[in-house]
């Protein structure tokens, strides 16, 4: 009789976006029989509306399946689904740390992509066994042979035995399951040792409160016991422990070393459950925390304000709840002269920002005004201090600044050879520094660039897609801070500086950007009874100007007895439009003007 751990397999699925990760997960859940076909919604694991719409996984999802293998034994398969976007690399890394093996899904037609590589390297970094699976072999353009060779050549892992599957058609899924049972190592760990659990996710449930997703490395945990988080120091009494049924929680008596499950506890403050933190018992703590924990570093910041100032508290509550589900969001109150009370919010990347914004608007019914995203700049002052600048408004006076640095990333772009020229041009336009080009095979190249992050956070993904007709894939990681000639660009509306529109930009692109912002704002700001100058300025120097002409005529020539009601309705509509605007000095600026400047590059 073996140990219970011999029958557990903790694994994740990694893939480039759209290579079929979630579809394979669905098939596995289906095959293992915990869910009937009728119960299966398409892509069970991607259960946020947004995820389904965007076709990507944002939150790590986890499910426990029971599989009766060909050897006649029943195995517990814990599938930990990982987020599928470069913005969420830390979350991916914590999910990987909870596993012993990774199934690498590669599209039989597209082959290796930028994120395939990034994910594989991340998995190997965590000492995971990686097993390739060739998906979409039903496609007419599928070339499994070529892809297998590519995997062996480029990544250097064994791929000859890789199952050839079609997740969509449910073809050869059993091969994948058998592979997991045979090849993924059973978890190790000592259930008698002090509790050591890895938090790889935490979500907020309105019934159960905070639910902590954990992998037990050592020891065991039962309801009623008191736990302690090593990084935050928070303590709480466990209310419930359990495992993950598909789409539901299944309470159990105890979680032991090697198991993946959840706990709920008397946690008052959700910020106490940080992804990557180590859970132990208060009565008998482990001596050492699990490696790899870091406080997530936001890369992109923006200001978020309620469109209606009266909803400040609602926004605050919503952000707090959102943070329960997404610990990588951080926020601090800030005040803008133009927008009133709001928050400076930090995100892992632009996609993360967009998702958060959409969730706030959709799930919490908020109407938001968002300012232009900014990266963190390092501002070195003449007195030797260094400021980490997240809000352009807080930039000290030029006389106090010695120099500034901006973050650079190492970017890897994989693209078919016909578009190499176009993509290199794009990277140059975005101040990229060419590093190298490697040909993966005859038709594809891997371009490496060092690029300023602030050139990527606006619309780089879109530009990349359009210039490569969708054939480029992209991955990046933060590299270093580099001294840079940066300036703060201010926008003045009717001679008043609008703090919410200020941003930091490289000196060489300041003129162009200033001009385009003025043009865009000119279109967005309605005409008033007076002329409104819109200016872009660096310090006291005006570098661009547009004018919103004064309205000359706004009159209903006819108004007699028959149409007084109708004319009043027209006026009411006009007045209603006015209400939704922000007052800046004597100028009324529509909410969407603040957001329109984010999309300067859309033609």
């Amino acid at each position: 009789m073996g140990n219970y751990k011999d029958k557990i397999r903790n694994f994740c699925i990694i893939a480039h976006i759209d290579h079929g990760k979630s579809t394979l997960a669905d098939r596995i859940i289906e095959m293992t029989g915990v869910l009937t076909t009728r119960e299966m919604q398409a892509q069970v694991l991607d259960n946020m509306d947004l995820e389904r719409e965007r076709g990507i996984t944002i939150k790590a999802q986890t499910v426990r399946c029971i599989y009766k293998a060909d050897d006649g034994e029943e195995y517990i398969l814990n599938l930990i689904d990982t987020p599928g976007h470069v913005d969420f690399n830390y979350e991916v890394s914590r999910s990987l740390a909870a596993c012993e093996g990774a199934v690498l899904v590669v599209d039989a037609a597209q082959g290796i992509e930028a994120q395939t590589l990034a994910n594989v390297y991340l998995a190997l970094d965590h000492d995971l066994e990686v097993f390739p699976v060739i998906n979409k072999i039903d496609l007419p353009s599928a070339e499994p042979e070529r892809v297998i060779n590519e995997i062996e050549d480029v990544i250097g892992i064994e791929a000859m035995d890789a199952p050839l599957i079609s997740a969509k058609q449910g073809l050869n899924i059993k091969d994948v399951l058998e592979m997991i049972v045979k090849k993924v190592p059973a978890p190790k760990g000592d259930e008698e040792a002090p509790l050591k659990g890895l938090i790889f996710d935490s979500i907020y449930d309105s019934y159960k409160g905070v639910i902590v997703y954990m992998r037990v490395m050592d020891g065991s945990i039962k309801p009623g016991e008191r736990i302690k988080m090593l990084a935050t120091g928070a303590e709480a009494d466990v209310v419930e422990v359990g495992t993950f049924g598909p789409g539901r929680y299944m309470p159990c008596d105890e979680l032991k070393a090697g198991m993946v499950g959840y706990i709920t506890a008397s946690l008052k403050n959700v910020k106490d459950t940080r992804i990557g933190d180590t859970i132990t018992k208060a009565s008998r703590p482990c001596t050492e925390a699990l490696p790899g924990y870091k406080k997530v570093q936001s890369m992109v910041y923006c200001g978020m304000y309620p469109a209606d100032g009266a909803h400040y508290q609602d926004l605050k509550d919503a952000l707090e709840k959102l943070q329960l589900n997404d610990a990588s969001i951080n926020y601090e109150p800030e005040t803008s002269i133009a927008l009133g009370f709001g928050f400076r919010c930090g995100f892992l990347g632009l996609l993360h920002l967009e998702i958060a914004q959409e969730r706030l608007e959709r799930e919490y019914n908020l109407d938001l005004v968002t300012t232009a995203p900014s990266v963190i700049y390092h501002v070195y002052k003449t007195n030797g201090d260094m400021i980490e600048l997240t809000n352009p408004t807080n930039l000290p006076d030029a006389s106090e600044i010695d120099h500034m640095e901006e973050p650079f990333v190492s970017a890897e772009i994989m693209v078919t050879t016909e578009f190499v020229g176009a993509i290199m041009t794009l990277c140059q336009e975005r101040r990229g520094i060419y590093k190298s080009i490697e040909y993966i095979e005859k038709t594809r190249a891997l371009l490496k660039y060092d690029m300023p992050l602030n050139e990527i956070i606006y619309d780089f993904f879109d530009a990349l897609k359009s210039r490569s007709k969708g054939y480029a894939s992209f991955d990046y990681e933060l590299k270093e801070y580099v001294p840079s000639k940066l300036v703060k660009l201010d926008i003045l509306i009717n001679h008043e500086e609008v703090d919410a529109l200020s941003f930091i930009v490289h000196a060489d692109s300041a003129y162009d950007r200033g001009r385009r912002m003025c043009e865009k704002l000119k279109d967005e700001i309605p005409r008033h009874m007076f002329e409104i100058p819109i200016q872009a300025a660096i310090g006291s120097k005006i570098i661009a100007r547009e004018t919103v002409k004064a309205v000359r005529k706004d009159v209903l020539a006819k108004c007699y007895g028959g149409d007084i009601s109708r004319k009043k309705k027209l006026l009411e509509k006009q007045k209603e439009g006015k209400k939704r605007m922000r007052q800046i000095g004597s100028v009324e600026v529509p909410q969407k003007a603040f957001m329109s400047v984010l999309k300067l590059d859309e033609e």
Partner: protein
Amino acid sequence: MEKELGVYVHIPFCVRKCNYCDFLSFPSCKEERKAYVKALLEEISYYSSFINAHKLKTVYFGGGTPSLLDTEDLKLIFDAVTINQDRKGICDFDTFEATIEVNPGTVDYDKLKRMKEIGFNRLSIGLQSVNDDELKLMGRIHTYEDFLNTYSFARKAGFENINIDIISSLPYQTEEKYLNTLNTVISLEPEHISSYSLIIEEGTLFFEKYANGDFLPDEDTDRAFYKMTNDILEKHGYHRYEISNYSKHNFQSRHNSSYWTGKEYLGVGLGASSLVGNERRTNTAFIKEYLKWTDLIKKTVALENGVKNAKDLALCNGLYEVTEVLSKKDKMSEFMILGLRMTEGIKKSEFRRQFGKEIEEVFGKELKENIKNGTIVTKDDVIRLSEFGLDVSNRVFCDFL
């Protein structure tokens, strides 16, 4: 003292729909017009006790083209409205104003003479332009010459109070063309001129063709036309008393002025609106529905209690609906946004008399801001729009809504 009342009679028929017109009007056949007149007479008789309870000051036959109706029908309607009024008063222009809208090409001398006999003492003639190419563009059925005939017939028939409608800012219109219209009209010496800056209304042919503004005079040109209109007309003894209305001394349209001063009015006919007490009402705009007036009266004989009963019955049958019940606040708003259309403006003392409050107490902030913006000027008891205020009056009105 009896309350004063104006009655509007809507005649929705016209020979053909003009390309810029979004009024409730359409071509018709003789039978349709007869049926309509029958229903209209029933509606008027419904309201007869209501009308009788007031002192009838003005009657206005508008359209459409009221001059399309036979004179017998016009007489039946006119008499029905004025049935219990003092005949002597009706004949006297000083106490009673009766207007009918006339379109060139729909009347001859005899018809105009007959109208005068019926009791109409004011004509409003739709000319719009003296340039035949512009008339054609607008889809008018007449030429300038047709108009001249109508106008001289009208004078000959004894009409001493005539309005001429013109339109500025037509597609492709040049200054020269507009001034030609304006000066030609002045030379005819009508007592009243309405000059409307063209409004492109949705659902019209003009909307489809010109809504993007490409062929229209730009705003600056439009305002230049507007200023010219006022300057030239003032020089010739016309006074602008409302945004688009000019008259010689004592020839303001009293009926239309009553709309801007919050007086009660009763609208009868298809789609007509009324202000009765605190209610704004609108008649059904569907002719089939409207014709039900004819059956309605058969079922109910006695309606001696006047408007209240008629209201209930007609309301139940969907012949009209109450579009607005005005609160005190609404009334105050309307006092401002309608009153300020008149160039003499509004009187603080009148506001106080009507609402028992100081105007500053209610609209202090709004007044102050508009005075600061230069859209409103105030002197002693009077508050009125400035020249600039007239150009952007909608903005000002929004503040008082």
